């Protein structure tokens, strides 16, 4: 199975500019728009005797509604690529291993030795563009932290007045350089750059974005 590489850029946008960003993305007709609400839980395993701790993300989509209840996507991200030549890439590059499952995923991973680090509710719109066989996904979401990891009613905005924009392209080991270039070109579109600066994330996704 070919390794899947995820290339991504992030940025923060003020709430006042969100609607304008939506309008511009809609104006680029190659994008299809879908509302999104995702419950995301970050879990980490306990390190021991030569086995480092590892992190996984559990995602449960509330919008678009999945076919069955208690369906989770489980993602494991590799470390971001470093080394010579990486500085020239316009996006962060890292491997991703993903699966979907049904059942009490949190209980299952807890029983394996993972514990919840944080959880959040991401709500907003996802714009997807499939151009030349290379899908580009742009998420414009507000991140809400959950006071109680399993109770979605306790969601409060993590950084009030700020939304997060994330542009992601998935590629293979052969095509990731082109995907990064594409993300860079997208970020440079003047209509976009005037509203939000998209760069390699300095912080892992989900952590508080810097308050602008």
């Amino acid at each position, binding site marked *: 199975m070919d390794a899947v590489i995820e290339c991504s850029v992030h940025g923060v946008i003020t709430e006042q500019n969100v609607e304008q960003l939506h309008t511009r993305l809609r104006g680029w007709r190659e994008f299809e728009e879908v509302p999104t609400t995702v419950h995301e839980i970050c879990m980490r395993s306990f390190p021991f005797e030569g086995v480092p701790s*590892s992190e996984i993300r559990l995602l449960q989509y509330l919008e678009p509604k999945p076919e069955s209840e208690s369906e989770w996507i*489980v993602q494991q991200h590799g470390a971001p690529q470093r080394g010579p030549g990486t500085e020239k890439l316009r996006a962060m590059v890292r491997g991703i291993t993903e699966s979907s499952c049904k059942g009490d995923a949190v209980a299952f991973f807890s029983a394996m030795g993972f514990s919840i680090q944080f959880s959040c509710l991401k709500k907003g719109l996802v714009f997807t563009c499939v151009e030349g066989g290379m899908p580009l996904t742009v998420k414009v979401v507000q991140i809400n932290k959950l006071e109680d990891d399993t109770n979605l009613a306790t969601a409060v905005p993590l950084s009030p007045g700020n939304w997060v924009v994330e542009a992601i392209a998935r590629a293979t080991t052969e095509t990731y350089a082109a995907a990064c270039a594409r993300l860079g070109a997208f970020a440079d579109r003047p209509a976009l750059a005037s509203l939000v600066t998209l760069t390699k994330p300095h912080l892992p996704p989900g952590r508080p974005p810097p308050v602008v």
Partner: protein
Amino acid sequence: MGAKRIYFYQLANTKGVQWSLVLNSIAKALETMSVDQQKGIKWCSKAAILRHKHADGFKGHGKDMFIFHPSDEPHKRYFLLRHEQVFLEANPSMVAVLEKSELYKHKLSFTVDGTVHSLGDFTARVAQATLLNGKFAGIILEVEYSPVDHVDEADPLLAGFCETLHAALAPLDGIFKPVKYTYKQFGLGPVYSGQHSTMQYLNLVAAVLTLLLPNKGQGSGA
């Protein structure tokens, strides 16, 4: 999915028995009883036991993971943390996700490989079971009764089917011993599901290990 029951074929006297001939006899008897146009349709289910790399698991938990890959649901894998009795139903790619965590090491592989036969409302699958190193582990019969998905209602009907098959095998004097399982113990409901199959196969593997490794009391960890 109808309710299923798994049986382990046991002969009183196993000395000098040629198991491949026994398997053939059972398959032939099923072929005679079936209405299949096509004979010898294959099936193959697999299971694996993974053990946590840390001797006690995580604070005493998560030591043993059972992974079941059913023949009739090729795009699914069932995961069961044995002692905690927590199930997860996932895509095959979940195995890759778990491998990335590097928490578990492979302990045992178990394969059942044989033929499937349609007999009206019953579907019978007979197979030989083997461990990873090719070691023969026994003959398995899996019977499914499609019209009923309630475990307790289907059990007597499935047992009745075995009696019919037993009669058809007349010279052979083995018995089909049902794999013991108490679905309530694992928090499962009475409606049959892939999780019930997973539980039966876990108990089957444990029973087989007990038979194959009688001196290793700790081996099966049942």
